[in-house]
């Protein structure tokens, strides 16, 4: 392991000229932003071409490549720091080494991301000068900040990577020093509290407020609080790296959000509000939330692909064991991010509808309705393949064969849900087929499966089934549950706190539903019953949650879990699935509340059941150690397939998000008057995204190869 520690992609021979190049690239972007002549939305657009290439496709390709590498660079540090914290907390060097190995993948990716970002900026400023001049005029302050943040991220990344061994060992810092850091932590926490209570930024959107709190304030406060020695300082640098990365992403997202939902400007595009208003446009934060989770899943899976490649090429049992474990951790991280991702997507979609019904209809029922069918195929595949990987993993767990019998039922639920998820509302039919259906283009039964209530129901079932697979996996080698009562106050208090939070999450929405005035949804008063019904279901769910907690605390945790899971599955999939159709018919706007209630019940259930499970099997008698490395090569191809699929899906979703603007550069403000102002077909999308995926994977292979030769050199 020691060798692996010092054998990053660059090892100790990193190119010292990379940092100045990155700084230069940042300065160039900054210079371009400042030098851009001011332009106005109503000016006639100027378009240029480079070597006769379709400018839109060129920008699309460069942006896609930049985002692929950027997502990896932002995603990997997120879980690298978490893994490092786990190792630090458990005093297990295995986790520390793994975190280091993940981080070693970043260097080349970071430089490539910056280079592609520079290329993209040059291409945008030279090929779309009017549009970029306008954007630079509105966002010049943000662009300055964006470029400056790169310095912060660069310093943090290199400190984090190259300082790994340097910031190991040593004694505790002096008490004064520790209190100084704790003091800073308290100041940051107080600032966070003021932000939470609305004393700072009272007009801020709720989602932006929580985004800042959870992704900047909380990590920084925790980071300062834990500093007590060199290692914890290193963890703090890791946290700082993530804060810089997240901020860079959020700033860039605000531009993409502004293009879809411009704010702070009048109908002519003149800035009449503040830069903050333009920055905090309606879609900026929903996109940032979605992208954050997507990056985490993507980073996990690309790191998983690295582990899979290494596993396939491994020559010794020790190597196989290490990369098998690395692949498992990567996949675990990816699944953890994948589970809430559909809900973040739903939230983003809802905000798109709220911004513009034209964009909303175009998304789900217009140009992109069939693109969403492809998306359903890809996302469904991600879940099915992830489950397959978990089931394959059970073969290396002694005792897991007890649970094999459940796999066929999980598979059945997944396949049925998958099939429903990708069923379109209306099918392309021949005139003969239409005649056979009595002149209707809608199939008498399948037409229901194409509607949103059916989709919402099955996506919840897919997530529940995946969670169930995970529960079986982690219980694989554990003989039987242990007493929670015997574990002392700590276990009971944790279950009570987590359970309380989970139930409170559902309860607050139950109260909202029981009090909501139908007029808020533009509905007549007699439709209140449809909203109240959701409230009653949520109250019932809360009661079941309480029952699960009581059972867990009285050593009948498995029964509590079973009841809670079964009731949640029934509520979110069957009851609210069917009820969604009723709501759609009688009180359509309430459908979004149904979806939110499904999400809250599901998330609360997953969190509480997972916590109960952690204590139920804490130090449970083992049936044998995990046999890392005893995995089929086929399972590693599943890991690779997951990476390919998520990469293709990212490209596809980018196409939808960007394409929703139709023939507008900035929706409703600046029209796209170029020859390329039309929505490309799905075939063009797959060509474009496919080419970007291929090139990205070649880039990844190059990174992995560099890692390989560096390791080999160290071993020699």
């Amino acid at each position, binding site marked *: 392991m020691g060798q692996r520690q010092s054998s990053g992609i660059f090892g100790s021979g990193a190119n010292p000229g990379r940092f100045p190049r990155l700084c230069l690239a940042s300065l160039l972007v900054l210079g371009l932003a400042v030098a851009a002549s001011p332009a106005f939305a109503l000016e006639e657009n100027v378009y240029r071409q480079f070597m006769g290439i379709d400018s839109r496709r060129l920008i699309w390709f460069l942006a896609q490549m930049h985002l692929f590498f950027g997502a990896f660079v932002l995603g990997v540090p997120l879980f690298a720091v978490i893994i490092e914290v786990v190792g630090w907390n458990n005093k297990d060097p295995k986790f520390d080494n793994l975190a280091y190995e993940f981080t070693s993948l970043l260097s080349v990716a970071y430089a490539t991301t910056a280079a592609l970002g520079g290329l993209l900026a040059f291409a945008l400023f030279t090929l779309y000068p009017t549009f970029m001049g306008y954007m630079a005029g509105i966002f010049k302050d943000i662009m300055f900040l964006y470029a400056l943040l790169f310095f912060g991220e660069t310093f943090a990344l290199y400190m984090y990577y190259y300082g790994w061994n340097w910031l190991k060992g040593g004694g505790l810092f002096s008490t004064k020093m520790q209190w100084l850091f704790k003091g800073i932590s308290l100041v940051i926490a107080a600032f966070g509290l003021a932000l939470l209570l609305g004393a700072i930024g009272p007009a801020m959107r709720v989602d932006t407020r929580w985004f800042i709190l959870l992704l900047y304030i909380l990590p920084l406060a925790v980071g300062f609080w834990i500093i007590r020695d060199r290692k914890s300082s290193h963890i703090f640098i890791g946290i700082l790296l993530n804060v810089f990365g997240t901020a860079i992403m959020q700033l860039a997202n605000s531009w993409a959000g502004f293009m879809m939902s411009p704010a702070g400007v009048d109908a002519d595009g003149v800035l009449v509000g503040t830069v903050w208003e333009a920055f905090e446009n309606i879609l900026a934060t929903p996109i940032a939330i979605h992208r954050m989770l997507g990056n985490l899943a993507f980073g996990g899976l690309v790191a998983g692909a690295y582990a899979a*490649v290494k596993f*396939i090429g491994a020559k010794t049992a020790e190597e196989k064991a290490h990369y098998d474990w690395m692949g498992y951790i990567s996949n675990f991280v990816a699944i953890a991010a994948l589970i809430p991702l559909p809900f973040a997507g739903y939230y983003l979609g809802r905000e798109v509808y709220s911004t513009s019904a034209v964009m909303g209809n175009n998304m789900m029922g217009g140009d992109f309705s069939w693109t969403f069918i492809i998306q359903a195929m890809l996302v469904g595949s991600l879940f099915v393949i992830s489950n397959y990987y978990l089931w394959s993993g059970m073969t290396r767990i002694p005792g897991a064969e007890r649970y094999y019998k459940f796999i066929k039922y999980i598979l059945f639920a997944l396949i049925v849900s998958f099939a429903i998820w990708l069923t379109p509302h209306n099918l392309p039919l021949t005139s003969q087929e*239409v005649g056979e259906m009595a002149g209707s283009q809608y199939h008498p039964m399948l037409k229901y499966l194409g509607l949103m209530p059916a989709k919402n129901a099955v996506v919840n079932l897919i997530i529940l089934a995946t969670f169930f697979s995970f529960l079986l996996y982690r219980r694989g080698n554990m003989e039987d549950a242990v007493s929670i009562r015997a574990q002392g106050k700590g276990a009971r208090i944790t279950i009570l706190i987590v359970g309380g939070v989970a139930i409170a999450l559902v309860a607050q929405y139950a109260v909202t539903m029981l009090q909501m005035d139908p007029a808020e949804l533009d509905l007549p008063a007699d439709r209140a019953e449809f909203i109240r019904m959701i409230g009653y279901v949520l109250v019932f769910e809360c009661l079941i949650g309480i029952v699960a907690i009581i059972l867990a605390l009285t050593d009948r945790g498995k029964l509590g879990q079973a009841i809670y899971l079964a009731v949640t599955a029934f509520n979110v999939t069957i009851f609210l699935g069917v009820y969604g159709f009723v709501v759609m018919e009688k009180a359509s706007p309430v459908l979004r509340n149904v979806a939110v209630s499904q999400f809250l019940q599901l998330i609360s259930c997953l969190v509480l059941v997972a916590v109960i499970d952690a204590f139920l099997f804490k130090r449970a008698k083992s049936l044998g150690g995990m046999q890392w490395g005893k995995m089929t090569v086929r399972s590693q191809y599943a890991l690779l397939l997951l990476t390919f*699929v998520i990469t293709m899906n990212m490209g596809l979703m980018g196409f939808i998000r960007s394409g929703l603007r139709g023939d507008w550069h900035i929706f409703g403000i600046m029209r796209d008057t170029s*020859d390329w102002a039309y*929505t490309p077909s799905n075939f063009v999308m797959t060509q474009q995204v496919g080419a970007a995926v291929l090139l990205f994977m070649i880039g990844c292979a190059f990174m992995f190869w560099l890692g390989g030769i560096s390791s080999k050199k160290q071993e020699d």
Partner: protein
Amino acid sequence: MNVTITRIFPFLLVVLGVYLWIGYSITELTGGGRKSSAAVDISPEGGEAIYWGKGRCFTCHSVGGQGSAVRGPNHGQFGEKFPLSMGARAVERARERAEKEGVEFTAVDYVVESLASPGAYVVKGY
């Protein structure tokens, strides 16, 4: 590592091939590729480019077996529900409108009105 990567790339190419095939099949199924309509002649080809391109007509209508949208009536001859061609249908609708409104109404008037003000005459069932 090199050998491993050469094993994996054919796998990636197969996956990408399937992805392209899905994109191609769905495009064919839903009315073919879109075309730019920045500058088109006043011709049937120009109209078709607008229909399947910038005009976005295909998001609500199909033409016979081409396209899959059913939010609005099919613009071609299709099954028992749409036995007449668009031209013949326009003549019939114009006659109905003329009888109802008591003013002269030609097939061209009907088509122009439907384009400019789609809600002026909504076909039964839509």
